[in-house]
């Protein structure tokens, strides 16, 4: 049930991202609802779920968007894992928390993505450009994270009751 829900969310995010959001590029950057989904899974269910869902979502994104396979997989699994590490430490009910977390994880994703592409010889993007893209992506995702994260938390609680509640 849990993984079917994640799969559905990932697919819906991907379709929206490649058809609608890809048209509203600002300075070459597109908002990434998939990152918010992976972040939510990591924060709510821990590093293991975050990393697995991140890897699956990233691989699916690589397949659908045509970029070299493995780049998004690595970047998103790092996002899910990092979100899971912070999940137990931070109060997730704070209104501004999703924006800050999404911004930080977006910057991490850009860094891992561009860094890995650079290391394997796929990109020679200047550091300034990577920083610019990272910053813009962080701002963009920070804005969309607040409503999306709240919606995902509500959906998660409605469909996947915590072990304490189900006892």
């Amino acid at each position, binding site marked *: 049930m849990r993984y079917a829900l994640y799969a559905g969310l990932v697919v819906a995010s991907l*379709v929206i991202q490649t058809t*609608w959001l890809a048209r509203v590029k600002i300075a070459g950057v597109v908002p*990434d609802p998939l990152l918010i989904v992976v972040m939510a899974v990591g924060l709510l269910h*821990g590093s293991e779920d975050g990393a697995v869902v991140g890897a699956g979502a990233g691989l699916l994104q690589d*397949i*659908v968007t*045509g970029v070299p396979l493995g780049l998004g997989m690595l970047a998103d699994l*790092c996002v899910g894992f990092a979100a899971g590490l912070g999940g137990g430490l931070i109060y997730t009910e704070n209104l501004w928390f999703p924006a800050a977390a999404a911004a930080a994880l977006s910057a991490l994703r850009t860094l891992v993505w561009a860094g890995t592409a650079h290391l*394997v*010889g796929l990109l020679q993007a200047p550091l300034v450009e990577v920083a610019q893209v990272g910053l813009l992506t962080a701002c963009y995702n920070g804005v969309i994270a607040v409503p999306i994260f709240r919606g995902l938390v509500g959906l998660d609680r409605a469909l996947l009751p915590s072990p304490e509640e189900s006892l």
Partner: protein
Amino acid sequence: MVLDTVVRRRRLVLFVVLCILSLGVLTDQLRSPENRRTGWLGIAVEAALAPASAGFSRLSDAVVNGWSLLREIGRLRTENRQLAAEVARLREENASLRESAQEDLRLRALLGFKDPQYHTVAARVTGRDPSHWFDTLLVDRGAADGVRRNDPVVTSEGLVGHIIEAGGGWSRVLLIMDPRSAVGVLVGKSRDAGVAEGQGQLRLLVKYLSRDAAIQPGDPIVTAGVGGIYPRGLPVGSVIGVTRTAGDLFQEARVRPGADLNHLEEMLILTRGGAVQDSR
């Protein structure tokens, strides 16, 4: 003992294993998009998502058009109500007709690009790669329409790229501005040969041009017809600058693509009609 450690550090072990797996997948294809084979998984994913993408794309068009129309009507309502209603009706009709006329013009221009050696398949963009550095498009024509891997894609303004994946009713186009793209080209009247490489932005870099070649800004660039993907003579773009460094064997030219690669809606796929691909 080892098993206990693995169980205790399960989270870290899982993370490391997934990292190694993703790096393994990545290093298997690197700069060559021809090695990017997604196999049955890719075919299944695209087969499942392509109709949804096409549907969302059309819905998006309808929403954008509807939103534009609402704004237009809202402005007109500030004027005389009766006249505004009439104007709104006429504008709606006019917008629809104008859009049809523009589409007709674009399609006519596309058909004018026809090469006798190739069959042409008109395709429409249904999805775009959202990443900043790579540039691919998803289009609504595929193997069922005779489209195959390595078929060239053009518009009336010039070369767009080539097909890197083709499914039943969809194909993926690698744009010439993608960093993985390299096209053999001829530059200007002197017809000096070079290789136009994508830079991830609306600019190509033509490398390996003879140092003695007289290349000027504005010189046209056409495909050289080598490599077996693109036919000879397709317009690619025009030179916007030349770089000569003392001591280098070659010079490089910066080129602006002829096709508006950031705003593509329709394009032509040049298929070889089932023949064995030419390997000139």
